[in-house]
């Protein structure tokens, strides 16, 4: 903060130097101080001059003017015959050379009206010169009270010099408001055009307020500008909302896909619906959290990378749980689908309650690393957020890796062979039980990765798995058993429909409607979107 100001200050001094040399400036400064010590009218003029300095002065001038406004407000300005002294620092108000005030010095008193203008001048100067962002924020809050009275160019200049992005956005907004309420109708119309270029709900409120402005009824040009601006903003907001819904749907679909692809592989291979898949997602998220906590202890410098470092851990832990589940339980329930279903349900309850006992029921707190925080505002209120992008990219990579595993590796070849015809596969020597086990591990590991990917977006608690299992199951049924393409399309469809319906009729209605749609669809195509080529026994 101070570092960048230093060169600016030097630059300011350099620019100011010729002015000083000309000798014009000390005179102007002395005149200003004299007005500060004058009557109420002169003091008002002084405040206006200070405000103007804040808007268009060099950094050096602003630095000079700032203590004056402050001193007037704090009643620490001691006026005497030779000018005035800043009591806080014990320096001359004009030259800033140390000196003591004369014994008969008096402190000017601000009228109620002048107090407001001095406050504004002080805030304007502080906004441009204070080193501490908190002070600048407070100054901005003061300025926001009376946007119409701000000196021209102040906010533009302040926005340009501002380093804090949040504060800059606020300054820019205030600049727009100020311009909208400016005295000059042409400036107002221009401001409307500028605001309409970046549609948002806030812009809408700002411009809508102008419809109540007297000028709206009186000035047809103004009225036309407001109406056109409103139309543009409304269109932008609608577009932004549509994009936001699509984007949210896409990120939800990504998580669904990652949860469902594992389910689909397992179901295709063994005819077992793994009801514990949702809990494997949950475990994946918890493992991610544990990695974060571990890093916090062991290597705080790497903390930001916990999401990346947790990838292999989450995969291996959940894959291990899946393999254990297959080897200890499902293997013994071979070709008894109902028993297998119940067994996986029991495991899901066991996992939920174990996690509940060990970690408690509250939501876990996750750090937000820089690569998943914030986003790029696109249009309207749609922000292209990085946390959702992370989930989407993650799912895309998972899709690619899964596809490559199933299509290009011997394991994948064996998985496909066993999926399509278990007896035949066994009779050409494929160790079907081992394929089952490894596929179960793969499917479970993918669920763990889903848990990792959703941790920056959704809340993580022991019950979270249940939010996903039903939807993932529907994705599998809709997509057709054991096909990657079907799973992708079905996840996209169900994810989007869910997100579309939810704001209209609520989450429960969304689930019910999606379920009804799937039932209707399966009447028409019982084998799902993409029928797997092969026969099951």
């Amino acid at each position, binding site marked *: 903060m101070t570092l960048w100001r230093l060169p600016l200050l030097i630059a300011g001094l350099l620019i100011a130097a010729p002015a000083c040399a000309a000798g014009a400036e000390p005179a102007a400064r002395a005149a200003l101080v004299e007005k500060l010590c004058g009557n109420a009218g002169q003091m008002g003029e002084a405040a206006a001059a200070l405000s103007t300095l804040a808007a268009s002065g060099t950094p050096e001038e602003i630095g000079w003017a700032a203590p004056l406004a402050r001193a007037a407000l704090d009643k620490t300005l001691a006026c005497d015959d030779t000018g005035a002294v800043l009591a806080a620092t014990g320096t001359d108000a004009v030259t800033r050379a140390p000196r003591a005030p004369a014994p008969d010095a008096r402190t000017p008193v601000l009228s109620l009206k002048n107090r407001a203008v001095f406050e504004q001048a002080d805030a304007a100067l502080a906004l441009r010169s204070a080193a501490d962002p908190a002070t600048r924020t407070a100054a901005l809050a003061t300025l926001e009270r009376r946007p119409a009275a701000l000196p021209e160019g102040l906010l533009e200049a302040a926005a340009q010099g501002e380093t804090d992005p949040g504060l800059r956005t606020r300054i820019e907004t205030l600049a727009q408001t100020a311009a909208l309420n400016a005295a000059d109708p042409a400036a107002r119309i221009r401001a409307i055009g500028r605001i309409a270029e970046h549609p948002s709900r806030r812009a809408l409120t700002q411009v809508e307020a102008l419809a109540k402005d007297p000028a709206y009824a009186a000035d047809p040009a103004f009225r036309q500008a407001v109406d056109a601006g409103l139309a543009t903003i409304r269109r932008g907001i609608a577009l932004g909302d549509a994009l936001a819904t699509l984007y949210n749907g896409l990120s939800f679909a990504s998580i669904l896909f990652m949860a469902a692809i594992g389910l689909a592989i397992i179901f295709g291979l063994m005819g077992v619906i793994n009801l514990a898949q949702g809990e494997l997602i949950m475990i994946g998220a918890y493992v991610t959290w544990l990695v974060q906590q571990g890093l916090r202890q062991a290597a705080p410098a790497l903390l930001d990378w916990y999401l990346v470092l947790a990838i292999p851990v989450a995969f291996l832990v959940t894959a291990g749980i899946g393999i254990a589940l297959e080897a200890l339980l499902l293997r013994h329930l071979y070709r008894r689908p109902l028993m297998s279903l119940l067994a996986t349900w029991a495991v899901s309850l066991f996992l939920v309650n174990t996690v509940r006992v060990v970690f408690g029921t509250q939501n876990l707190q996750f750090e937000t690393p820089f690569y998943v925080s914030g986003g790029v505002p696109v249009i309207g209120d749609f922000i292209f957020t990085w946390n959702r992008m992370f989930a989407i990219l993650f799912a895309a990579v998972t899709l690619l890796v899964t596809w490559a595993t199933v299509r290009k590796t011997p394991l994948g*070849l*064996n998985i496909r062979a066993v999926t*399509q015809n278990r*007896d*035949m596969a066994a*009779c*050409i*020597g494929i*160790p*079907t039980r081992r394929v089952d086990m490894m596929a179960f591990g793969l499917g479970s590991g993918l669920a763990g990765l889903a848990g990792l990917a959703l941790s920056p977006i959704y809340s993580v608690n022991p019950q979270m798995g249940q939010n996903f299992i039903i939807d993932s199951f529907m994705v599998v049924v809709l997509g057709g058993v054991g096909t990657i393409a079907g799973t992708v399309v079905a996840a996209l469809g169900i994810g989007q429909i869910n997100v579309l319906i939810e704001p209209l009729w609520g989450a429960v209605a969304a689930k019910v409607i999606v379920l009804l749609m799937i039932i209707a669809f399966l009447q028409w195509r019982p084998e799902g979107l993409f029928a797997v080529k092969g026969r099951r026994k």
Partner: protein
Amino acid sequence: MSLTALLVDGLTVRFGSFHAIDDLSLAIDYGEVRAVIGPNGAGKTTLLDVISGITRPKQGRVLFDGREDITGRSEAAIARAGIRRKFQKPSVFEGLTVRQHIAIGAGTGFRRGPEGPALEDRIGEVLETVGLADQAGRLAGELGHGQKQWLEIGMVLASDPRVLMLDEPVAGLTDEETARTAALVRALNRPDRAIVVVEHDMDFVERIADKVTVLHEGRTLFEGPMDKVRADAGVVDVYLGR
């Protein structure tokens, strides 16, 4: 190496109270093409199921290579021991290519099958043998019925098995395809390999078989060369005469 590739000894398979195979014994030698015939439901497929480990027998055992007891082993273990079997119902993997069939048949993946150039050589060789060399890249689901049958033979052949069992390899084939299959089966015959063929087509059986076993209600009704089979009164009675 013993002379007997497969020895089936006192085998009984029951489905509930129904005896699909009833105290059946038979021996199949290396270098032999054995046909197993019999009316529908005679237990031919069930016999192959037991040998390949899909069905567990109630009694009896199956010895491979004269001494290795394979009863009760898993399908994959039996397959890896060198016994391969083509199913009666069409059993190609429709989503895999012809080449991939031969590759998994040859044992890529988990087992120490051939890899790299050796695998490619083996695939090429097998595809040549079964006459599908020009179809290597196609999906099995797109093949004609006859080609599927040959693909299945190629798949079980790929690992160079000691015992090759084919369940109805010419069912539904044209005469010309049947003739080609017969030539193929004869070409696969080797001194260190036993081939078992289950078939209803008598002309086909006559062309390929060294010896014929006639099953009836889970028991051996007759065993001998084809011309003797045709002459046997009992066989004519239960099977050919129908």
